[in-house]
């Protein structure tokens, strides 16, 4: 059992959720309520990580993280080391890959709020930010919780993109999913089995909790 890898995966999951959720909420809100041309294109862009092979995403990210790209140079000057094959690079990749898992549940939840509830809130004297805080946020909470858990669980399980942009550096980029792959390659089926089971149970528990929570939050009586 590679505890370092498990710890790294959990850290990566939490960091991804913490960074992605606020950004995804803004994006989801824009997609749910905004009136603009090209919504279909933006939605397609957000959904892209769902269908692209992880190797394709990984390849583009690796290119973008490289010393030749402006993004790579920016982080190089910020961190003092390259973004590729670093924990920070993994977080950034994870945020991008998880975009659809975070945006879609929140967008659906926000779109499901009847428009006249938001109008009524404005007629009650609530400023736009208060409408978000007092009406939209609480009513979309089940969707937000779903987004958080999906993102977290999906980050724990992400393999292809992590391997492409992170490699398998212990304590830096070797997540539990990578560690399982390494153990299998080394014919250490016992360790691989234990870690696979841990990942399975963790994911199942997380999904179970959200589903229950989401149902409870969505009930208003």
């Amino acid at each position, binding site marked *: 059992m590679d505890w370092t890898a498990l710890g790294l995966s959990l850290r990566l999951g939490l960091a991804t959720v913490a960074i992605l959720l606020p950004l995804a909420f803004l994006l989801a809100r824009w997609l749910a309520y905004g009136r603009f041309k090209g919504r279909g294109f933006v939605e397609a862009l957000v959904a892209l990580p769902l269908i692209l092979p992880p190797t394709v995403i990984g390849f583009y990210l690796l290119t973008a993280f490289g010393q030749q790209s402006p993004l790579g140079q920016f982080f190089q000057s910020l961190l003092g080391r390259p973004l590729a094959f670093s924990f920070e690079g993994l977080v950034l990749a994870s945020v991008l890959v998880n975009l659809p898992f975070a945006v879609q549940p929140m967008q659906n939840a926000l779109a499901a709020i009847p428009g006249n509830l938001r*109008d*009524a809130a404005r*007629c009650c004297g609530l400023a736009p930010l208060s409408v978000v805080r007092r009406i939209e946020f609480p*009513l979309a909470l089940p969707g937000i919780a779903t987004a958080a858990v999906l993102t977290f669980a999906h980050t724990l399980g992400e393999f292809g993109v992590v391997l492409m942009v992170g490699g398998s550096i212990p304590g830096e980029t070797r997540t539990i999913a990578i560690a399982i792959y390494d153990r299998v390659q080394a014919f250490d089926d016992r360790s691989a089995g234990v870690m696979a089971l841990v990942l399975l149970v963790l994911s199942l528990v997380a999904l179970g909790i959200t589903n229950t929570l989401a149902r409870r939050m969505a009930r*208003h009586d």
Partner: protein
Amino acid sequence: MTETPNVRAALLVRLRQSAPIPLDVEFAVPSGSITALFGPSGSGKTTVLRSIAGLYAPLEAEVVSAGERWTDSAAGYSLPTHRRRVGFVFQDYALFPHLTVREQIGLALGNRPAGARQARIDELLALARLDGLADRKPATLSGGQQQRVALARALARDPAVLLLDEPFASVDWALRDALRHELRSLQRALSLSVVIVTHDFEDVVKLATDLVMIDGGAVVAAGTVEALTASAALPGLAGHWEPAVALDAVVAAHDSRRQLTHLRARDLQLSVPTIEAPVAAVVRIRIAAREVILASQRPEGLSLHNVIQARVLRVEPASHPALRLVHLAVGDTPLLSLVTADAVQSLKLAADAPVLALVKAVSVEAFA
């Protein structure tokens, strides 16, 4: 607006655009009035109401509330909805499903000290007869209770104007009169200025003081309910509206021995079967033109309580070629009578002719 600002108007509205929803309306809402925006479905009434609240922005719009500019498209100005003192009761009430009745009302109260806040919430709960329901969520309330919550929430802001979108459309027919009565009492008690959108002319007759008729996004008639019903020139109502006058009357006295109530609508005095309203209360009455009989002499031996001295204003054709609509004045109070053309001949009814109007007590509909 070109005319001098009317200081007594709670609201001045002027909206114009050709697409996507055609609008061409201009009207004033007198302070302390219940102004009905009446018209068929899809005539643009609700869009007008939303424009007043700032929830919709027509291309050309001017909305002034009690001297305060809310919308002025010419100057590119629009006060955000949350800063307009409006109360809006949505057709489906639009209650917040995650908040209790107390929280819904509290949300609309804005910032104020906790003590004053609770006191005001309790006051509004009592006003809307919601005592005992404060900690319930909307899903557990009946339709009528939900409507009262929506009303209490709309009143919480102490609105300069209360806007109601089809408030009785989703209420059981049998309950409507009671709810109209509640709304009217509340409006009088708080001296509210109310705009109500409706496609049910009963709301106009029983509730409204002023009427703006809208069709295809344009005003086709506007004025007081009394004047418009008395003129009998109500466009778009042919076949739906039987000529009648709708008047406000004061309860003058109750005659318990004869089980009658005496009403006074300005110069018109009427006796009607006892109604449940205290002396000095204002009630709305409707007298259908077909219920008013005309006579040249005072009749004897009839089961009649109301023999009224009136004067003919004019005689007009009616919906049927054999009938005439006679416009009468009792002092300065209007009355309509639907009679045959033959009767007009034999009674020699012409402008300024004196005539007696006979109205059975049971022919006067009174809405307390």
